[in-house]
């Protein structure tokens, strides 16, 4: 008589090592809070993308200003004499010529341009308007100078030679206001960096909390898998895959939304640079950095889930 089920029990029995499969034994996706976590990661990714773009924009702004003002200075002949009297046009023209002549003989000077009335009109236009009566306003004489180098000894000699013409002449190397501006931009960039770090820390905390609550909800099931001989990797992979999927969905949503917002800003502003502000940066490196955000978010999520679950499992016998 054939014993029922005999073949099944006499088959070769091989114990294998549990390996991860593309399936879940735990209903992680059905948990409450999954949508909340996805939305949170989307918001964090959006903020991170905006902070990154802001940081890149400040970066290119710094570079533009630094390179734009490097080896450049402005010589200003004040509209007033040292005794308080206003200079007349002839005096001003004569002084400008004398200074220009001095500059021509200075070896470190590459070029020198005396600003005419139209140039000065353009400079003051944003403050005084297009139709300002410049002839009634005492304006300084300005010479824009480009240098071959800013070697201190040569600079000192040039300053001394100019001061011989008139001791009241001002030589503005732009250094003072550029330094304070660069300091301010440095602070803003640091703030953007801190924001990105806070966003990353918040994301890690949120994911770790969510994973811990899921472990608590499914404690009995996780223990059962553990008792059946599931190794840590088998259990961890399920949580890791879950966190990674949510992070990918959330971060893609956040990053794409940020891209759409930035594109709209660029479209609305017409790509113009307003006064000192440069257009939103979109170099290849910056674009790749922002596009890599979802990958970074996935990495953070997967690693956070991994270490959180491993820590919980290590408490089991």
């Amino acid at each position, binding site marked *: 008589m054939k014993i029922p089920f005999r073949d099944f029990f006499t088959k070769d029995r091989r*114990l294998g090592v549990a390996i991860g499969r593309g399936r879940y034994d735990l209903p992680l996706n059905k948990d409450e809070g999954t949508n909340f976590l996805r939305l949170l990661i989307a918001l964090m990714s959006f903020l991170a993308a905006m902070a990154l773009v802001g940081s890149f924009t400040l970066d290119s702004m710094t570079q533009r200003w630094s390179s734009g003002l490097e080896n450049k200075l402005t010589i200003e002949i004040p509209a007033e004499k040292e005794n308080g009297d206003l200079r007349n046009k002839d005096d001003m023209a004569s002084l400008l010529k004398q200074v220009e002549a001095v500059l021509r003989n200075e070896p470190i000077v590459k070029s020198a341009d005396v600003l005419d009335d139209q140039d000065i009109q353009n400079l003051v236009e944003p403050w005084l308007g297009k139709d300002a009566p410049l002839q009634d306003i005492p304006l300084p004489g300005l010479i824009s100078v480009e240098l071959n180098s800013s070697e201190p000894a040569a600079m000192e000699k040039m300053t001394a030679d100019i001061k011989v013409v008139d001791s009241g002449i001002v030589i503005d190397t732009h250094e003072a206001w550029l330094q304070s501006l660069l300091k301010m931009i440095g602070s803003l960039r640091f703030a953007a960096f801190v924001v990105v770090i806070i966003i990353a820390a918040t994301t890690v905390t949120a994911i770790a909390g969510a994973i811990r609550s899921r472990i608590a909800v499914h404690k009995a099931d996780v223990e059962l898998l553990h008792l059946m001989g599931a190794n840590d990797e088998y259990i961890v992979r399920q949580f890791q895959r879950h966190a990674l999927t949510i992070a990918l969905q959330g971060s893609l949503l956040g990053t794409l939304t940020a891209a759409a917002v930035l594109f709209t800003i660029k479209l609305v502003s017409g790509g113009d640079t307003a006064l000192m502000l440069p257009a939103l940066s979109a170099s290849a490196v910056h674009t790749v950095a922002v596009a890599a955000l979802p990958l970074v978010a996935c990495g953070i999520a997967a690693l956070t889930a991994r270490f959180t679950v491993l820590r919980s499992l290590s408490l089991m016998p």
Partner: protein
Amino acid sequence: MIKFEFVGLRYGVGPEVLSDINFTLEPGSFHFLTGASGAGKTSLLSLMYLGRKPTRGLVSMFGQSINKLERKQLWSLRQRIGVVFQDFRLLPHLSAFDNVALPLRIMGRPEKETRNNVGELLEWVGLGDYKNALPLTLSGGQQQRVAIARAVIGRPKLLLADEPTGNLDDEIGFRLMNLFEQLNRMGTTIVIATHNHAIMEKFGHSRLILEMGGLRVEETRSSLRRKIEGVY
């Protein structure tokens, strides 16, 4: 196979629920674990399926001292043990099929082999038509059969069952006991915690009796005969 020497277990700072437990289970042996309610049957089983570590004493399983093993080394040992829990502990969101398949998937067996074996076993325990049913839609007896199928699907070296026939009618109960007997003849060591005297009388295996936190081994005529015949 299993050796307990002066094993004690306490929960937290409470009194010992198991005290100076000494016994040896030979490979291929069959035992009933019995005792009054609260005597510590479930606690003793939890030590045997490596769900807990003893507070004191030495436990040796499959020739290895549990006290000296690292966590990672316990995983493969647990895969050699099948457990039928008193409360079944089926995963409520998985179908009967997936619940039974779980041990094989944990072992990393090929999916085709898993499908064939699980299908065959579910048919055999009379649940062929309930493969896709969720545990909550099954009766207590059906859930118990799923739990038993899950415990035996990996052909364990050691099968531990906590009141496995408690929710079953006599006919199914005896049928499942025959399955355990069959597994035992294939070399699986079996320990069944039960209060059911009819089953203990009918199958006549040795009894591990828990009393006052300690354990007493009571051989029966049938178990002595098996020992003499060298079955184990």
